[in-house]
């Protein structure tokens, strides 16, 4: 196989993986929206799930070359880390406030739009 053939083959493989990443992330956006609702209802374990999914999208988005997808996921991850760190210091954790929920909801909205933009670009 020539170098050019090898590069073309790799490009086809990477494109297929990118499509899979976008489809997976689209599903994860739905999960994030449901988790924010659960956090709003005071379900503490939902925050850890939210953080885990955001971390995954943050890293994978960067690796797959989608900074506009990675960045809002990074914002959700940071906000979750700050909340977890703050509550860990309190005897009676205050839980998420309006500011946290607004910040995360806005980031999920951006994330959702960027995923759709990227999906449309791949079609």
């Amino acid at each position, binding site marked *: 196989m020539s170098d050019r053939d*090898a*590069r073309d*083959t*790799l490009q086809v*493989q*990477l494109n297929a*993986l990118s499509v*899979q*990443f976008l489809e*997976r992330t689209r599903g994860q956006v739905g999960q994030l929206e449901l988790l924010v609702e659960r956090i709003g209802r005071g379900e503490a374990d939902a925050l850890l799930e939210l953080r885990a999914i955001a*971390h*995954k999208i*943050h*890293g*994978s988005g*960067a*690796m*797959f*070359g989608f*900074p506009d997808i*990675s960045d809002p996921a*990074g914002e959700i*991850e*940071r906000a979750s*880390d700050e909340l977890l760190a703050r509550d860990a210091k309190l005897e009676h954790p205050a839980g998420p406030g309006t500011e946290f929920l607004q910040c995360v909801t806005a980031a999920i909205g951006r994330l959702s739009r960027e995923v759709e933009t990227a999906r449309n670009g791949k079609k």
Partner: protein
Amino acid sequence: MGRSDGRVNIDTGAVSSRLLALAVPAEKRILVVDDDDLELSLICDRLRAHDFQVSQAANGQEALEILERQWFPVVVTDWQMPVMDGLEFTQRLRQKGVTDTFVIMLTVLNSSFDYERAYESGVDDYLSKKQPDVELYARIHAAFTTLNLRRELQAARAALAAAGKTP
């Protein structure tokens, strides 16, 4: 055997052969450790396209088991993984006395990452998940170069020890 002028004679057969064996550049084999199937495929496909022999593991525990059976000059590992994360994996690898495997930690390089603890655990280098291909290959080639220098140093020390000289 040592020489009367203080220099070490490394021309004796046993010493020379050990030197040669250890000084042979490491094979281009890499173990990639990541719990995310898509990320794993992405890295492995990119490395294989550049003629690296790539094996993969889904977490630190699996990577340790693979390394029990086969030596890898370079390991590229994610940080946060279930079962065993990248830091614990590196720590356990070093506790086993494995120093001739170069460990590169993949991170998104955010403020929550404890770099100091990672270096103390035995991580050799970091690679941002945001880096383009050219950076990935440059860092991996640098890892192989460093590892080969380590092996040559190890060979030289072994040669000195065999010749009766304390390095």
